[in-house]
């Protein structure tokens, strides 16, 4: 392995390849920052350009695009409360409040360093721990996916800690919306009200743009503000180094979130969208000041951005070991490999080891180069958004949302759906329903339903078909995690009270 790694450096550190990586990073950043362009689409769009390159170089570019795209989603999340990709949903929770307080640049820099950290950890696992981790992924069957979805829903109790009831209602609404379309088992058409365009259901990105972006845009219009965020009163010198030190201090958060991201990425069917919210939840749970989350603290951004970039490396683990893509962009990469006659799987490491190792090492390089590329673009973007008057910013935001929702399926219907959901989202926002739980329901609905019904079918051969959910050890791990996650807020309050009483009695004596 060591010779292959050192040989790959020779391939990578040439001017041509470095330039290609940087070009890929800028492209990925742009598509990530634009809500509507997902990582999968960005990678798919650029596949034809790679036909003329040799397979290794093509993969390197696509890898750079992928990594930067997931990071770029944080830009729009922080600046206009719209996740640029589903992997950055959690970044809106703390990133946007920070921007509104005038700390947008600090937020972007935090996201940059966290993303790079997470990306490196993910690729590290890919390089050294692929085989054992991949076999864990296979153990996840339908019952486990169902319990994982349940666990995901219990996160709502932390996300919406101020009003758990409304959070769960939002989650239920999201879950219900996700059932629109074709039933995963049986193929029934559900809730389409006769519109054939709804057979595909509500696209996640369309809902994200609608629920997150439009309400904010409408609010800024309604408040007749002059500018969007509070501008920093003076240029802060040294903010780059200061933020770097700040982020690096939180090794616990960084490491935990990155590992969580890698693990979630390994599971085919769960990607960055799930990972960032799970990491956010865990960050709240172990934090000494959980109530600060959501008001605009860097810890939230660190958790979400580290985990979502770790998914990049994590998702490739089952791809290169078993030939099974861990996340949708990996499926496109898989296709590229097949087209070039390379079959992903264990043989790839032996027969084409130089391709694999060069690709993996290039991911390291791309992640590190992502930092300067991101800092420059992010700062530029931030200054633009902050300086632009609302009468320009709001229409431009609407313009970008229209392009974004159209480009998913080249369908004007999606744009109408996006706007309708936007109005509904605005109404719900005024009623104190946070969009986070709703989108969580939208993401987990298909995973949960599929797991649920598939498991019931699996259980047909058992005496009681419902036992299939309870007779597997991995399921129990997830069940316990869900119970803990659900009960944690109440549990913590009890413990806090207990310690307070103890302190008081000690003081008295």
């Amino acid at each position: 392995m060591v010779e292959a790694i050192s040989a790959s450096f020779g391939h990578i550190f040439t001017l041509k390849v470095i330039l290609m990586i940087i070009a890929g990073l800028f492209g990925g950043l742009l598509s990530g920052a634009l809500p509507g362009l997902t990582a999968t689409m960005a990678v798919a769009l650029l596949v034809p350009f790679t036909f003329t390159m040799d397979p290794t170089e093509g993969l390197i570019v696509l890898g750079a695009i992928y990594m930067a795209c997931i990071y770029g989603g944080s830009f729009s999340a922080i600046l206009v409360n719209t996740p640029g990709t589903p992997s950055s949903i959690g970044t809106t929770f703390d990133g946007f409040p920070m921007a509104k307080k005038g700390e947008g640049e600090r937020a972007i820099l935090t996201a940059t360093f966290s993303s790079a950290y997470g990306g490196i950890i993910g690729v590290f696992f890919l390089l050294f721990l692929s085989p054992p981790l991949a076999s864990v992924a296979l153990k996840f069957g339908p019952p486990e996916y169902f319990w994982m979805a349940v666990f995901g829903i219990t996160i709502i109790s932390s996300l919406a800690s101020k009003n758990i009831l409304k959070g769960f209602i939002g989650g239920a609404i999201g879950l219900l919306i996700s059932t629109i379309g074709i039933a995963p088992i049986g193929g029934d058409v559900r809730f389409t009200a006769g519109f054939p365009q709804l057979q595909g259901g509500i696209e996640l990105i369309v809902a994200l743009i609608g629920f997150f972006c439009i309400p904010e845009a409408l609010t800024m219009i309604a408040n007749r503000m002059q500018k969007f965020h509070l501008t920093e009163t003076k240029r802060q010198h040294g903010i780059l180094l200061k933020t770097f030190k700040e982020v690096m201090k939180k090794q616990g958060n960084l490491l935990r979130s990155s590992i969580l991201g890698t693990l979630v990425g390994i599971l085919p069917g769960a990607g960055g969208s799930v990972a960032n919210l799970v990491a956010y939840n865990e960050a709240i749970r172990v934090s000494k000041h959980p109530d600060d989350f959501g008001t605009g603290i860097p810890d939230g951004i660190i958790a979400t951005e580290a985990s979502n970039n770790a998914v990049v490396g994590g998702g490739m683990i089952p791809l290169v070991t078993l030939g099974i893509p861990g996340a949708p962009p990996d499926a496109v990469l898989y296709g590229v490999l097949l087209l070039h006659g390379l079959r992903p799987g264990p043989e790839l490491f032996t027969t084409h080891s130089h391709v694999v190792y060069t690709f993996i090492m290039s991911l390291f390089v791309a992640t590190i180069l992502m930092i300067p590329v991101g800092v420059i673009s992010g700062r530029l973007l931030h200054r633009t958004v902050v300086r632009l008057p609302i009468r320009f910013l709001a229409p431009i935001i609407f313009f970008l949302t229209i392009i974004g929702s159209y480009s998913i399926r080249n369908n004007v219907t999606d744009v109408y759906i996006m706007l309708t959901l936007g109005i509904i989202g605005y109404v719900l926002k005024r009623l104190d329903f946070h969009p986070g739980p709703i989108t969580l329901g939208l993401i987990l609905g298909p995973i949960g339903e599929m797991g649920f019904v598939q498991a019931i079918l699996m259980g047909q051969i058992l005496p009681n078909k419902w036992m299939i959910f309870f007779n597997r050890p991995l399921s129990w791990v997830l069940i316990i995690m869900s119970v803990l996650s659900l009960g944690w807020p109440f549990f913590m309050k009890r413990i806090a009270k207990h310690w307070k009483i103890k302190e008081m009695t000690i003081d008295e004596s």
Partner: protein
Amino acid sequence: MKRCKVMMIVFLAALVGLTFTTAAIAKYPDKPVTYVICFNPGGESDITARIQQQPLEKVLGVPVVMVYKKGGGGAVGWSELMRTKPDGYTIYGTNIPHTIVQPMTRGNAGYETEKINNVYFFEFTPDILAVTTDSEIKTLQDFVEYAKKNPGVSVGGSGQPSANSLGCEAFGKVAGLKLTYISFTGSGAAVPALLGGHVKALMTYTSMAARYPDKIRALAIAADKRAKALPDVPTFKELGYEFVEGAYRGVAVPPGTPKEIRQTLEKAFEKVNYDAEVITKMEDLGFIMEYYGEDASRDLVSKLTGYYRQLLKELGLLKK
């Protein structure tokens, strides 16, 4: 004299009009052609289209752009096909049995099978019955015995209704077995389920066996003859079960496309299908080359429509 003048003008106008239309058609194609895939990027429809992309660009002389319109198992894309401009610059990938089965089982799929104007069907992916390589089931006969002892054995596959699910039902009928079909979002999700032991067998496509030769053992292939990529796998017919099923992939144009454009596309795809590199890549991945031109495609569709209508009726899934 006046009448002569009028006649002259009418004749000239007709001549000019004719040259314009023939010129427009003769120039086809002169701008990029959009190839719409009604599924996810990275899926099998995407891969087969990508294999065709460069040779197609060479034959047509213009760039070919991939666009993805997924949703409803392809139905969202195909319903848009009905409303696309019939100028030959947008072609849609089509799949059987999806385009036949969806209008039959859904109240409103957004399109009718007969309205889809297929110009070419270029490949066939037969079903295979597969187990893991370390399974105790080594031959089809082993599986049949196992299934008889354990009725309701789980068989995974991609989609429902689909070539996998309908194939599973058809095989169950032919062999007199009770199989529980468990549908997954795609073959890419079904394979991990098999490898993880969550389902006992898979009714999947040959391309899966070609991709994971060391992990999947194909017991039999549901085609008329063996596949080049899997030469050791017997057909169901050889083993005594009259069972043929699989998915066809082709391309279609919107209704009302002029005949010349359809013929140009038909010839282009045929040429691409004889390209040596395309053939090698497709067969390596487990796809079987087919050469159905426009008329042959129409016959194929009507033949299969009758077959699926019967099958769906027996399963009680027919809505219209």
